[in-house]
């Protein structure tokens, strides 16, 4: 099962390596990991996408919770949630295919920026599946480079991830 785990951690040097070290040391899978400071500059929010059975994910959450820098965590996939990933795709589009190309960009609500001769950067945000579909739909053109942000997400119900008060 795929899980998205949101983690609030102290915005301190080394915190990221504690998390990534935990995953590698215990053989846990990381599909993607993103991290950036929150509106509270002393806290970072990390979003980890991992795959594992319930027992493994339970262990992952417990071990994350044990890290001294981790203030709170939540598996947002256990109920309704919104997940987004940003993708930038650099593609080569021959002149005779620009119409088809623009049709794909439009169909995905993406934007295209002309960067050189016959090259464009397509930008889109959406679920990981939608990002996959966008990349796959460029078969008529040549994909030169792909960069994905990794998943971020929020619970789309009343659940809030916050630091418990002492």
């Amino acid at each position, binding site marked *: 099962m795929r899980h998205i785990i949101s983690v609030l*951690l*102290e915005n301190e*040097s*080394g915190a990221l*390596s*504690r998390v990534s*070290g935990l995953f590698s*040391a215990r053989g846990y899978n990381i599909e993607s990991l993103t991290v950036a400071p929150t509106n509270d500059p002393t806290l970072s929010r990390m979003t980890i996408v991992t795959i594992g059975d319930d*027992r493994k994910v*339970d*262990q992952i959450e*417990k*071990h994350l*919770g*044990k890290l*001294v*820098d*981790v*203030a709170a965590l939540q598996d947002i996939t256990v109920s309704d949630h919104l997940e987004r990933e940003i993708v930038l795709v650099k593609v080569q589009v021959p002149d005779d295919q620009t119409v088809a190309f623009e049709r794909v960009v439009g169909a995905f609500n993406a934007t295209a920026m002309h960067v050189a001769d016959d090259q464009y950067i397509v930008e889109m945000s959406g679920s990981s599946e939608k990002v996959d579909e966008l990349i796959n739909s460029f078969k008529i053109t040549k994909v030169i480079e792909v960069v994905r942000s990794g998943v971020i997400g929020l619970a789309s119900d009343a659940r809030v991830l916050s*630091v*418990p*008060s*002492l």
Partner: protein
Amino acid sequence: MQLSGADIVVKSLKEEGVEYVFGYPGGAALHIYDAFHRQDDVKHILVRHEQGATHAADGYARATGKPGLVMVTSGPGITNAITGLATAYMDSIPLIVLSGQVMKPLIGYDAFQEIDAVGISRPCVKHNFLIQNVEDIAETIKRAFHIATTGRPGPVLIDIPKDITAQVTEFIYPESVEMRAYPPVKLPPLSEIVSGVEAMLNAKKPIIYSGGGVVLANAQEELRTLVRSLGFPCTNTLMGLGGYPHDDPLFIGMLGMHGTYEANMAMHDADLIVALGARFDDRITGTLDGFAPNAKILHVDIDPSVIDKNIKADLPIIGDVKDVLNGFNAELKRRRKDINPELTTEWWGQINEWRSYDSLWYDESDTIIKPQYVVQKLHEVTGGQAYVTSDVGQHQMFAAQFYGFSDTHRWINSGGLGTMGFGLPAAMGVKFAHPDADVACVTGEGSIQMCIQELGTCKQYDLPVKVINLNNRYLGMVRQWQEFSYEKRYSNSYMDSLPDFVKLAESYGHVGMLIEKPGDVEGALREAFALKDRLVFMDFITDREENVYPMIEAGKGHHEMRLRPGSKAQ
């Protein structure tokens, strides 16, 4: 008060009540060593190798329950300390390791004796810090003590760049520490206590299995109250020995790979396993397939990640085992009339039958010293009251099986990491903590050579440890596995070119004894322990091919022990 970073380090240790710091100086730590020199409150003990410093601090911590302190320099100083950090981490021992670091502007430039101490120690510490500003030193030390000693204890490393120890700032030691991401351990809900007690009151085949957590939580009295009020059989893990007295009829011995027949069979056949501060590790469970097939698992631990890790708990309780035991005992007092000893009568009949097989039996000899016999005599000579440290291997198991502990904090060994070389430096730490107590290091000729340089430290500080070297001229446990699983192909498990341990001990200024006959064992031990102010290195020439029984071999379960040939249990 304006102080240098180095003085702040030492003053902060004084504020924490630190008596001893075990360490070894070097370039990046020199300002701090100068600060040690300026005061007499915190005593620095100079070891011979940084691994020895960590084990000595670890032994001190295990024998006192207080955190152990280590000071090392950068680079090889901290890399040498890593084995000791990992040893303490695996056994949840509170250590504070201070490491010097190269000057902050040089970090990342491959400076002389530079290593990423925070990075290299990360997998084997509870937490670590790299100090960035002189103003942060006192607060960081306060936090380090808090983290190391609360919750599930463990080692904490503080890496301090040299230039920061020379800078000056106002010294204010914080009185308390609050960490939003590291909240205090909560009391478990009463409903869990009630359910746990209900399960115990209804069990027909219960077993109480207690581990190192009971030792760390100082919960031996609470454990004894629980066991005695229920009349349940109690087994201890290797780390939990002393939690329940060895000679109490309710005690059924150590469990696990080299546990007693009755303890392992009782685990296998139980209908309720009450796990207290123990973690169902692989040396305890044997193969997980078919583990205790009919047992309900009541699992108490302070660390949530231990619950459901190896064995799924039916009744998990997360909390300090002392608090939980107090809860159990209070609830049992309330329900005193519901305790029905008849429920377990049949179970005790079965256990006593298993016990009658005497699975630790060995064939005594008049001509060759049996290692078990030495440990039994050690118990007699020390009245069972010694602090016993060990290294790792057969001698460790013989000490665990045969010494017979009546109290916690007396049995000091590297259970989780299995670190050879632990015993002698750990005994030094114990001796500093309890100068008037008998301290024995039960070791083997393989293990002792891994930290034998600490005989020098023992001389410098007059530490009259008694070294019990069970010398079988083999790496005995490796040889035993090779005998059982590799058709006696003894690949590299011999010990050739051994030193003359008597002369070696004497060259360090200690007393050496060579004991070759069973008839001399007791007399030699009495003589050695009568030498109150001398370290005595006792080299016992033991049976070369003695094995540790019972044994649960790889892939086997609790009920599939290999038993000593010729024993009743067989």
